[in-house]
């Protein structure tokens, strides 16, 4: 199974959280709220393209709205393969985190 990077993992989690209305801007806002980082629209689409080519997400043409200048949204959903890859990746992180102790941070 293909490996997934950290940003890919975060985007896939955001897609799952926003299901079924995950598209460029909603993903960008979700990532900003949850991680505090603002990724550019281009970065989001580059990651989506990468995970789409791995077969982890499936795009679906959405509706066009006036504020988008009549341009359609593209919604993304995780495929079964994507969900399995995400769960495997998160399990690996959880296993590594278990019983890991951090030294107290001096302020």
């Amino acid at each position: 199974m293909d490996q997934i990077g950290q940003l890919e993992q975060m985007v896939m989690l955001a897609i799952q959280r926003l299901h079924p209305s995950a598209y460029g801007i909603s993903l960008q806002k979700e990532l900003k709220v949850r991680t505090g980082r603002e990724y550019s629209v281009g970065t989001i689409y580059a990651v989506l393209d990468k995970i789409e080519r791995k077969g982890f997400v499936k795009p679906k043409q959405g509706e066009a709205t006036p504020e988008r200048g009549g341009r359609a949204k593209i919604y993304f959903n995780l495929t079964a393969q994507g969900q399995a890859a995400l769960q495997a990746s998160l399990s690996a992180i959880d296993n590594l985190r278990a019983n890991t102790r951090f030294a107290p941070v001096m302020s």
Partner: protein
Amino acid sequence: MKMPSDSRLSLVADEILEAVGNLRLQTAVANLRVQAHGNLAKDSGHDLEIEFVDPKETSVVLQVKMHSRSTVNQPEIKKRTNPPGFGEALVVLFAPKDRIDAVLGDLSEHFVEEVAEKGLGRAKLLFWVRVARSIGPLFWMKVRNLGLVAALFEFGRRFIS
């Protein structure tokens, strides 16, 4: 049609979105359904010039001025509410063909939101920042999908056309 003496009207959030949408589409602003203490008829024979005064999360106060239809400068409204065309052209040059509409749509959606929240000048600046931050990853995505030579060829073809 009688205009309220205080021309500030409170609207609920979804109506604001509709207002923004109507401005973006250049449809008659007078068609806007206004829920307020004033009694503004749908087909009043007048256009409304709308300015966002105090954007909040759930309601927005608008400054509304009435004009007879002939005095409203439609091209000016268009100029005020559309994202910068040159920025959009850059996205068309750098983005992969199958994602151009989605990216431009997202940038436009951000722009419309920011015009309402932060004003036109700041919205334009933020639009340019978003374009500048996006074209690198978009072009890299195109190179990854097509290969460098084909991506450069397509870039040149679009640049010429």
